[in-house]
């Protein structure tokens, strides 16, 4: 049994919904916009409190994002709540043109991202979203790791006055964020000190990275664990310091590796401080059938996988 199994874990949609309701009760500009996703985005409570501020456009993602941009034009602060694969895959050009390029203050909330919809298969997996959205200019990308970061992200986005994409985790995760952790663009969270190797992890992989670090400490390997709730803009200084001060970096994310965390860190490293890396994520294949936990293990996105990568980067593969 792993360490994380023993701790309480959370579906972050609850923290998301609570924080949104709390914000909405203070700021009447806040509205929720969804695509027949009231239940799956956990918006039932929001609807009860603010029936007139929940807009359901039906199963129509292009309209969903366009409508949100229009609401923003008229002074609302829309939180678009839709399953991440459809929000990002189906409305990408609307995200680019109506939101990012138009500088609309729209908060795009990708619900159930990564492989949270495990058995529902690749059409329902949102593993490409980080690569897709990091390519869009003028859009911040936030990947919370637990309820604390989810709340902070919801709050931060309301005041951001700019386009934001926010992954809202559904796959249950334990609390990982220390009480005094920063939550801001370009600010990594240091979760473990260490000087042999640095593991940088986001989302569901953060707790797994911590478990890996704890187990490796018992083996005498000192692992620094960093977490970057802001994937974009990322904390380049923390990455460069890790490259300089430890012997290698392992990144871990529940996403394709082509353009997400691993790619962001690799680009920073080769530009400023080359060092060995291992990039963990979903390889370029469509996942087989299985639940989220099964798929994460299948792709070695586990403490074991991270431990193997750390040893590999140290050359004791």
């Amino acid at each position, binding site marked *: 049994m792993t360490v994380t199994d023993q701790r309480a874990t959370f579906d972050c949609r609850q923290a998301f919904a609570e924080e949104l309701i709390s914000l909405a009760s203070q700021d009447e500009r806040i509205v929720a916009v969804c695509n*027949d*996703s009231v*239940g799956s985005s956990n918006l039932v409570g929001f609807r009860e409190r603010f029936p007139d501020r929940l807009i*359901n456009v*039906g*199963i*129509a993602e292009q309209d969903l994002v366009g409508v949100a941009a229009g609401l923003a034009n008229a002074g609302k602060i829309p939180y678009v709540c839709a399953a991440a694969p459809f929000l990002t895959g189906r409305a990408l050009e609307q995200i680019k043109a109506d939101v990012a390029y138009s500088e609309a203050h729209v908060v795009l909330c990708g619900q159930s991202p990564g492989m949270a919809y495990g058995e529902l*298969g690749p059409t329902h997996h949102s593993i490409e979203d980080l690569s897709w959205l990091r390519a869009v200019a003028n859009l911040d990308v936030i990947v919370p790791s637990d309820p604390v970061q989810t709340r902070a992200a919801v709050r931060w986005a309301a005041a951001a006055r700019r386009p934001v994409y926010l992954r809202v985790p559904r796959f249950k995760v334990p609390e990982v964020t220390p009480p005094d952790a920063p939550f801001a663009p370009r600010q990594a969270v240091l979760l473990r000190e260490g000087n042999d190797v640095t593991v940088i992890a986001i989302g569901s992989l953060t707790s797994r990275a911590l478990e890996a670090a704890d187990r490796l400490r018992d083996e005498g390997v000192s692992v620094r664990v960093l977490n970057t709730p802001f994937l974009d803009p990322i904390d380049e200084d923390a990455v460069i310091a890790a490259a300089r001060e430890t012997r290698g970096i392992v990144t871990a994310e529940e996403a394709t590796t082509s353009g997400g965390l691993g790619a962001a860190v690799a680009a920073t490293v080769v530009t400023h401080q080359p060092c060995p890396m291992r990039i963990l994520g979903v390889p370029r294949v469509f996942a087989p059938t299985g639940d989220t936990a099964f798929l994460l293990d299948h792709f070695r996105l586990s403490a074991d996988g991270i431990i193997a990568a750390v040893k590999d980067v140290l050359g004791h593969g």
Partner: protein
Amino acid sequence: MALLPPDAARSAGYRELTARIRQAAQLDRDTAAAQPDRETAAAAELARVATDVRRSVVRMIDRARMGHIGGDLSVTDILVTCFYGVMSVDPENPHWPGRDRFVLSKGHCAAALYSTLAHCGFFDPAELDTFMAPLSALNGHPNKVKVPGVETNTGALGHGLPVATGCALAAKMDSASWRTFVVLGDGELQEGSNWEAAMAAAHHGLSSLTAVIDRNRLQQGARTEDTNALDSLPDKWRSFGWEVREVDGHDHLALLDALSGSSTGRPVAVIANTIKGKGVSFMEDRVEWHHKVPTAEQVETALAELAG
């Protein structure tokens, strides 16, 4: 993970049964009058298959503890009528170029599709036990790479009609006689991609294309008319250039008629009025059964209701 192999014994049974149903259902072409007795016989056979499929759906969802039971039960009669009463397919040769194409655009109802395909002999029904289990070919949404009888991967709504339009276009380019069938959810029609394809299919005169709308008046979270109203649906399809037929989507004979070829040279939209959760009293027309999973007791009740 490999492609499922066909079930030869079953597919022989399928050939025999479909032949019987079609013969029974055939109109007397000379008099253009129906033959009531034989029609009744066809309806009875189709009803038997539909009951098998519904029972299979309940068992699959019970075992997997996941699924979309309401839409499975509403679409079953459509699926069964297509595969047993109308289409030309060969379960032992699923890629036969001259086959009719069938696309389940509302891919979340994979359990009903898999049950139908297994019943036809596209693969061994024993495989249904693996629905959504690790490494199963039977994913929560249909994957053509793994499952014979599936023509394109669906699950994200609004994909089936464009793909079916492409199939029908190819048939027309080749002057081939095979037809294309696509089944859409009603809530799914809120996706604009459908209207793109509807317009293009009409423009290209794709009379071999039939779209069946599973008009159960419910979507995931509420009634369609309370979410984003679709009525008047026949007017929408007609204004996009389609021939429209409205039918009771649980009446096999009415479906058989409605699924006959186009009489206008235009693509045909069959608006099949259905009941979500059809056949299980406590699920019928109730939004929560979109994807709720029945308890052991509810499963028993459901199977009992579906027995007779």
